[in-house]
């Protein structure tokens, strides 16, 4: 079973991908590392960040421990948030 999630890119991720929002097909149950693989396969430009970003589902941090289970339903939001360091 798959579903469509809304991906929102912030800061350097937005610049690398070239848009603020996109739609992504993901299985409704998958591990964190599978989710990251799908994301990086579709948005290869993010690879240069070398995983230096947070993934958040519906505004909640997803733990980057590889086998943590992530459950999605259609319409969920996945945010890609690299840190900013300017000031």
């Amino acid at each position, binding site marked *: 079973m798959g579903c469509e999630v809304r991906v929102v890119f912030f800061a350097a991720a937005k610049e690398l991908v070239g848009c603020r929002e996109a739609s992504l097909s993901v299985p409704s149950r998958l591990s964190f590392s599978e989710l990251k693989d799908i994301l990086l396969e579709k948005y290869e430009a993010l690879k*240069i960040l*070398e995983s230096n970003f947070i993934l958040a589902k519906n505004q*909640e*941090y997803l733990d980057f421990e590889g086998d943590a289970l992530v459950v999605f339903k259609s319409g969920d939001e996945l945010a890609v*948030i690299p*840190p*900013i360091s300017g*000031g």
Partner: protein
Amino acid sequence: MKDDYAMAHLSNAEVARYGRQLILEDFAVKGQLALKNASVLIVGCGGLGCPTASYLSAAGVGILGLVDYDCVEINNLHRQVLHDEEKVGMNKALSIAASLKKQVLNSLIETRTHEILLNKDNAMGVISTYDIVVDCSDNVPTRYLLNDACVLLNKPLVSGSALRYDGQLTVYHSDGGPCYRCIFPKPPPPYTVANCSDGGVLGMVPGIIGTLQALEVVKLLTKTGDTLRGKLMIFDGASSSFRKIKLRERREDCSVCGRCPTITELQDYELLCGASANDKDADVDLLDEFDRVEVKEYKRIVDVSSPHILLDVRPKAEVSICVIPGSINLPFNSLTRQVCDESYVGQISERCVECNSSPDQPLPVFVVCRRGNDSQIVVETLKKTLEQLPVVVKDLKGGLHAWASDVDPEFPVY
């Protein structure tokens, strides 16, 4: 040293001055006394540090520490609103202290300036004398340094950052919450980190984030409201939207705040991050002298109308500021390290035909950018992509900054 009675009571002058916040139910006299007895260290006296210092000073934080090694530049003034034209060249910590004295006129508080670059040897000594640290810095090494020092000294860290239209804000190592390393265990690859000098920043964005940092400090000190402990506030100035991401709890295996930390003293953070602890650009030195030409030499080529091509690899917004006449704009994306447009190969090929260039008499292609860093990367790329054409690709050494200083003093510098 203020005496015990003064620290436990508000004077009539203080009641008069802070009346509008004193009458807030959860703030009240105990809140004001908490501020009066507090010491807060602001690290970085720039776009974030200015509003943070302004509001904390106005609110009556007893001792305000200001750290900055850097001096005021004219290009700071659009966002660093406590500095002004007369203070260009002055140390930023001293400049803020002077402005607070003049503008905020809060004779009831004390400021302490630290005109230093914090590093592993001096950070603990400075930070240990303050209750809370506010990260208003502009670079990755300082962010890891402050995080580790705050964990080791058990101080909360109010962390803010801003770039372009984006801002981020959270409170680390507070009340059992996560630290910076719990969320970002590894520093980013250095070339993916943009600074305000290259990426640009709209002044109000650090203005908003710095003001929110001051609010978090006041809530931490007065124990009112909910702080951003364990939450990351994201501000998108382009759409005027705030978002609050719930972060994870403290990481049991965090290398600095976990159960068995491997980091028990400060490290060399420039080494850890592969970057300098400032937001200045390091000079790139990629090419041999043969692949480079001085701007004065280029000027002679222009003066004798010798056939050549000048490629300006800056982003379009920068080209709209100033340009050397006759150049072709070929924007280079410093993040993806690619030129954005492939049509230039055809254009250069046509010029080679027009100019009758040959392998014996190749057409010079000069590459220019703002400072002469990106242009070197592009020269390396073009030497490969233009291999089949009768051209010789060279970097214009020092870029438009060199052009302005050595050839055309009227040329704008940004």
